[in-house]
């Protein structure tokens, strides 16, 4: 049997990641944060997701991998109903957050609970402080003093505080690419979300910036469920606890990361991981 490449760190970091509690598979252990059942997605007449079912475990990092254009981002964006900002999209099936259908929730409340970080950092043309405080203000939280505290706390969690604490009122665009992305993470964290969805957050960043973000995600999962779409298999292998492999709009396999990478159950998964296509 062909052994997959040893993404050396996989064994090590996954052992550490699954430190607390029993190691939950997709269908046992604590209640899944997201439960997706028979999800079909349509863009106009074209179907882009076919009968996806999966459970995303809480307070873990779940990676979605697969070649370009196979639906990972579409799936991610359905989790906080961002697909509704685009015309002609249609969703069939069920998505539950803590056992409640997300379609029944008020969408602005849903998006406060489930934050999103985009592929290319998109800080607002405002100051660093105002960027982080935006979500708080828009949701009607916080007088000035509590705002300042919340902003500081979020910047700490995003591992950015030390670098910007003296320039909070400078424009966000004065930061480097990696810093801007961490700012976007801080901004998402400010409203205290239960889950964060990240769409290839490091694809535009250099390895050092990438490492910083992977490390902060590792600490973040203690308080937050994290779902991350990534093109980078090594990143998925070293940084995630669970991984789902998408191909042409279908979910091929969903497993604990170390299992998926070492002993994939499906041939397509193995082919992708060993680089036969992608």
């Amino acid at each position, binding site marked *: 049997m062909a052994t997959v490449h040893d993404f050396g760190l996989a064994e090590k970091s996954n052992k550490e990641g699954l430190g607390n509690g029993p190691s939950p598979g997709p269908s046992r252990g604590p209640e899944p944060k997201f439960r997706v059942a028979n999800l079909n997605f349509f863009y106009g007449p074209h179907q882009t997701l076919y009968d996806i079912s999966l459970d995303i475990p809480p307070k873990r990092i779940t990676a979605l991998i697969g070649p370009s254009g196979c639906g990972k981002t579409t799936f991610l964006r359905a989790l906080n109903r961002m697909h509704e900002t685009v015309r002609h999209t249609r969703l069939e099936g069920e998505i539950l957050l803590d056992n409640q259908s997300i379609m029944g929730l008020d969408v*602005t409340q849903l998006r406060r609970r489930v934050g999103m970080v*985009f592929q290319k950092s998109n800080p607002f043309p405002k100051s660093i402080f105002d960027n982080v405080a935006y979500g708080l203000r828009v949701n009607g939280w916080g007088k000035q003093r509590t705002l300042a505290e919340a902003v500081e706390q979020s910047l700490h969690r995003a591992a950015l505080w030390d670098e910007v604490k003296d320039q909070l009122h400078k424009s966000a*665009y004065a930061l480097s690419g990696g810093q801007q992305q961490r700012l976007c993470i801080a901004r998402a964290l400010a409203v205290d979300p239960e889950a964060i969805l990240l769409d290839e957050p490091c694809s535009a960043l250099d390895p050092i910036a990438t490492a910083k973000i992977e490390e902060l995600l590792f600490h973040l999962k203690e308080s937050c469920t994290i779902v991350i779409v990534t093109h980078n298999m090594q990143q998925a292998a070293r940084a995630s606890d669970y991984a789902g492999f998408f191909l042409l709009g279908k979910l091929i396999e969903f497993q604990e990361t170390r299992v998926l990478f070492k002993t994939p159950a499906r041939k397509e998964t193995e082919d992708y991981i060993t680089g036969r296509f992608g």
Partner: protein
Amino acid sequence: MKLRIIWRKSVNAVMLSLTALCALASVSVLLFILGYLVYHGGKSVTWSFFTQLPKPVGETGGGMANAIVGSGKLLLLAALVGVPIGFMAGVYLAEFAGSAMGFLIRYTTDLLNGVPSIVMGIFAFTMVVLPMHHFSALAGGLALGVMMIPIAVRSTEEFLRNVPHTLREGAMALGASKWKAVATVVIPAAARGILTGILLDLARVAGETAPLLFTAFGNRFWSSGWNQPTASLPVMIYTYAIAPYDDWHRQAWAAGLVLLGLVLLTNVGARWLLPKKAHVARG
């Protein structure tokens, strides 16, 4: 063979020079205009020009204080009419409109843009002057205001569309509703461009004469309120220029210099403001 190549090269050189000449000739018109205005009117742009009222017909001296204030009044009214409608319609087109309604509004706006300014004057005349039975600043302001609408719409829509979609999405992903995202992130991001567009629009209507000829009409004295015939700088220039008095001609040049100076300053200033954005996204 060689002769042919020499011929083609010389044709090339000649046409290069000819077209360059066309361009330079066109540009030099601007310089001529400025030159003549400064030459004929420069000396007459004095303090009294800005502060005195016109003297009785036939007497020399006096100024255009009432025309300057009158133009200000008219522009204020025009902005009150044109900016809200233009801006909100632009927001509608950029953020909310479906394809059918969007097409209809854009087409109508284009239509309105093509209306000759004198016809706009007729419109304001029938809507305001006829019912009121007299000329007024209201009528003039309305004519100018309606003329402002199409450019305000286009300017607003264009700058809103230029804001990257990810900014909108970022705000909504934080829990902002669509209108909040637009109001607190998208519009501020486009604000500089929109303001510049509106400023240029104002500068354009500031120079319009035809729609005022039978709406605001004119006044040799101060006009109080909005219900009276009102003097304006462009109409003053016209009236003085076609009159037989040399002194009035002199004042017309001065007024022309002031008007053109303001218009050009606004245009140059706007173009200088626009490329410079404080928050330019890097990397």
